């Protein structure tokens, strides 16, 4: 499949500080890709470079088959991290304006703007000035402004921040709609549940460096397989079992529960059988499926903490 975005060895230096340090990754055409990373990891800088708002210090970026985003500007939609609108323009007016800047004829832009507002629940606010909209509504308007010209690639920087749960769902719906129209979506977030629900691929960066690029499935395979067990005198049996890497008491407050890290080849059915064979009365036998949250903490935990202290 063709790639929509490809970064090769991209470095962005601000003075002495490497905001983005030798990052390479690619986003497939038609995919929804989550761009994950802790605060200050270099997500926004990377996005700005992809959009040619900033130029990389070195490395190359290709976007929609071109070397430079300015050549395909009209095919890209962008929602920046910090949202803002012209206070004195109407909701419909501002969506239409941004669409015309992307080369859409004025008339068409106007009718699309009204259509979109209607579709995503802002129909009665079309002619309200932006200063009269709530923060969440304003954000929705801005998201709609970034997709009104029907771009092939949509880049959303923190689209969920500041939205209530209902509108977060609307946002997810917007992204899924884009996918169903065959668009490519790259969005950054640090709320893993959204990424987990809607992404196929993820890119994780931490402290300016690439930590992961692949599918969600591949990401989940990074974490070792874990099984939680609990039962009478279970500790005595464990050392005699095969395929177990380590065994530590679980820290989540449950008494007497152990977390086993097992080898990749270990079949959980055999493990369960071994416990039966050893005559252990099991209280708990739980195969842990890693979620993206854990993977994220695993990948960037140290860096994120460091960044937080900076």
């Amino acid at each position, binding site marked *: 499949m063709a790639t929509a975005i490809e970064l090769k060895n991209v470095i962005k230096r601000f003075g002495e500080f490497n905001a983005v340090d030798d990052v390479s990754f690619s986003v497939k055409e038609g995919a929804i890709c989550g761009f994950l990373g802790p605060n200050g990891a270099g997500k926004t800088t990377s996005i700005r470079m992809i959009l040619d*708002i900033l130029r990389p210090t070195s490395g190359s970026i290709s976007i929609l088959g071109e070397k430079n985003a300015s050549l395909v500007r009209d095919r890209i939609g962008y929602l920046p991290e910090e949202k*803002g609108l*012209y206070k*004195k323009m109407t909701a419909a007016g501002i969506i239409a304006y*941004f669409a015309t800047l992307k080369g859409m004829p004025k008339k068409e832009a106007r009718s699309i703007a009204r259509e979109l507002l209607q579709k995503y629940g802002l129909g009665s606010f079309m002619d309200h000035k932006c200063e009269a909209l709530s923060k969440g509504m304003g954000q929705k308007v801005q998201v709609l402004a970034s997709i009104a010209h029907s771009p092939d690639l949509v880049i959303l920087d923190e689209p969920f921040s500041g939205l209530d749960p209902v509108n977060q769902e609307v946002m997810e719906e917007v992204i899924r709609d884009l996918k169903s129209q065959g668009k490519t979506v790259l969005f950054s977030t640090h709320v893993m549940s959204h990424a987990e629900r809607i992404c196929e691929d993820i890119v994780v960066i931490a402290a300016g460096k690439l930590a992961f690029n692949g599918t969600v499935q591949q990401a989940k395979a990074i974490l070792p397989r874990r099984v939680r067990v609990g039962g009478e005198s279970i500790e005595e049996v464990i050392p005699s079992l095969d395929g177990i890497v380590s065994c530590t008491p679980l820290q989540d407050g449950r008494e007497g529960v152990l977390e086993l890290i097992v080898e990749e080849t270990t079949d959980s059915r055999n493990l369960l059988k071994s416990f039966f064979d050893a005559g252990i009365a099991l209280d708990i036998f739980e195969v842990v499926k890693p979620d993206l949250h854990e993977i994220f903490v695993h990948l960037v935990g140290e860096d994120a903490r460091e960044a937080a202290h900076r």
Partner: protein
Amino acid sequence: MIRIYRVALREYMENAKTKGFWIGILLFPLMIWLMLEVPRFLEEKGIPTRHVIIVAKDDAAGDISRQRLTLLNRQKSLSSLQQHLAKETADQRAEMLENTEFDAAELLEKLEEGLSQISPDAGAINPFNPEQLVEIGDLVPDELLLNDFRWKALKNLLLSQLPEGSAAFVEPELRFKEVSLPGDLTSESTNEEIENALRPYLRSEKLFPSNDENVDLFALVIIPENVFDGESQIRFWSTNLADTDLLDAITNSLSEHARNLEYEKREISTADVTEIAALRIRSNNFNPNKEAGEEKVGIRDKIRQYAPIGFVYLLWIAIFSVAQMLLNNTIEEKSNRIIEVLLSSVTTNELLLGKVFGVAAVGVTMQLAWIGSMITILRLKAGPGAEWVVDLMAAVISPELLIGFIFYFVTGYLFYAFLFAGIGSVCNTIKDAQNFMGPIMLILMVPLGTMMFIPNDPNGTIATAMSWIPPWSPFIMMNRMAANPPMSDIVGTGVMMIVSVIMVFWISSRVFRVGVLRTGQPPKILELLGWLRSSNS
């Protein structure tokens, strides 16, 4: 290009929707209209009749003063009658203007003659038309106005010219009205007695009873016995120190009389004195820059010399009003972070150009509206004969001059507009911007200061030197344009301005690119220089 246009259009529409824009457009003609109307209104309605008591211990002085007051009253009445006639016969007069040769001296002679022949009540028989009677204005001699019989005839003459169906003429309030001393006082009473008795009225504590009405006593004038000797002084009592018309009228008329007495005493003919006082040495001004035979300098040339001041003002106001809009807009976009979306759709250059052109269009609209409303008001006010406003403009501003003005206006405007947009891009609040604006405002004050004296020496050292400093060049060159500056200066500064505008655009666009994405404190000057050097920010 289409993107520049769209950014410009939005910028224009947004500004055109603001209250400030419409207030700006409407305030100006309103101000001009008020400037024309208020003084007239005040003259007509504002100053009430001044009631005055004149106590003359010298009969001749009393007569002269009273005569002068009568003269002023009649002048006011005549001028308002003329205005009325002018208003009622405006259409007729426009026609007459074209085929009437107007000779004041001849007309006056005719008037004298005419008035002495007709009876005061038979005004209809006369050799005049309304145009002549309006134009004769202030020329009517004092003696004629002071002659009761002729005054009445003159008034009837004017009234008889009113076309049928005209509004009736309403006699204006008298300017001055003398009221007599209260019962127990006479001109023989001592000053002290009179002043003490009248003090409460002069202080406006009480209204002064005069005939059947009570009036506000404006002033008390006591003229002493030997006033013409110049030894004793007039005692003028009034709480109003600002309105000196009454006192001036009395002192002037008495001084005149005193001088005439003195001439007689020294056996000098007063007629000779008047004639001698009218002697004037006249001069003709020539300009060696003009073609042979046309070197004579007329009023038109002088206006031409000073007309550029208007353009300098215009440029100055344009830059000033635009500065605010550009700063506000850029800072709004920056603090709202809209800029990032914009920059994903248009390049910094497109955005910068769009903004500057959009705001320029707002400024131009405003100025065209001003010029248009000014010409309209002047023409309305001055009646249909006021083609001169347009004629004068056309005569004073020849095409070469106009091209020069437009060139320097555009380059001057762009120079500052790009500068302001650049400044706006590095500031997060208007407060930040003010720090940068301070020095620029100082620079901008300079041409305003030199504006008045450059026309005195348009090709002098200072003017020439200042022409070569880009921030001042457009102003100074506009100022000099009418004085035929050397071609080398025009071409040289023209090229310099184009280069400067491109430079400022380039710098601003660099700064803009980095500045608009930056948050926090505005950068230091050294940092700014760094931005210019780095090509890949």
